[in-house]
């Protein structure tokens, strides 16, 4: 059985998915990707993860809706999972907004992967 930390990434861009997967693998994290909020919910219900990186802008169900739904799940180990928002439109929301939506932290696009890794480590510690 693997002891790797498992990260679920909700992101509809395959470019960001591939790059993030590679960067996280370099730090010995395991990563799976979901293309929209609905997939994030399905994968989280089917499998345990340690953290979610959630893009705000996704088709079908966006990151905010998805996070609100996760926080309402009955399973306490699932609904408490740390979630980091990734947003390309940070100007639309204040940090307080992100906390109210249920996110633990938020990161702006364009992604700076040093910052992504530092934020992931901070949240997981």
């Amino acid at each position, binding site marked *: 059985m693997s002891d790797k930390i498992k990260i679920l990434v909700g992101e*509809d*861009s*395959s*470019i*960001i998915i*591939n*790059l993030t997967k*590679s*960067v996280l693998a*370099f730090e010995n994290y395991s990563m799976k990707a979901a293309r929209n909020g609905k997939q994030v919910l399905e994968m989280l219900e089917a499998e345990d993860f340690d953290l979610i990186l959630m893009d705000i*802008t996704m088709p079908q169900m966006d990151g905010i809706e998805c996070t609100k739904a996760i926080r309402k799940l009955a399973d306490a180990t699932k609904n408490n999972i740390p979630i980091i928002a990734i947003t*390309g439109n940070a100007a639309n929301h204040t940090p307080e907004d992100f906390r109210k939506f249920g996110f633990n932290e938020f990161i702006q*696009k*364009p*992604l*700076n*992967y*040093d910052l992504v*890794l530092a934020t992931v480590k901070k949240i997981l510690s």
Partner: protein
Amino acid sequence: MKSKNILIVENKEQDRKLMEHLIGQVHAFQSFDQGTVALSQLAIQNPDLILISLQLLDIEPILFLQKLKALGNHSCRVVGLISSTEQQQIPYFRALGFEEFISKPIRPKEFIPKIQSLLVLPEKTGANGRENPSSGPILNPEIYQQLLRLSSKEVILQVFSDFAEECENLLQLLERSNAIETTEEITRAVHTLKGNSGTLGLDKLFEAARFSESLGKQGKSIEFAESLHYLKAAIKEFQEFLKNEQSLNNV
């Protein structure tokens, strides 16, 4: 006798009158409230400096530059008169070809020294001296080195290749769509391109996409459609850059 000839294009009367007053004490000038009228004058005259508002009502700054360039006989600098609320768009206007800017409101004490300093700069070789959208690096070397440090070169090359394909898809979407009628769909695609280009360190492409997206979201359909010409130019520049196998090795 006044030594230099300066052409002013400003639709806001108060700003135009102030510039006329200040410049008139030192140099000859011609003043216009419409870019299209100024262009007809430029067809027969060759000023030493052009000052143009970036918020003209009758013509976009980009079109003005294109038409000036088409006239073919101008080597003077074109300076953008930029309001305080547009300051964050300077990278975009630089990408269009503007190299120098004067902030509005005009500050009389700073204005003439700035004009004098622009007049002594060497002449450009074409209309603002540029063929390309801008002369900055296509790829931000710091971000590229960061990606190489945190990933592998094989993955990075593949990601750039995938991104080039995404760019091509956007170009095709633009070719088959009417940007004014399909602003929302194109804005979504531009949003994705913005996030990806910025993450990959493709700064010029990022700035072009950011500005197009901003216009699309504001519902400025005509300006949005116009901005896409420069987004396309930035995409093609990136595609050319990537075609050269040595490009990424030289970063």
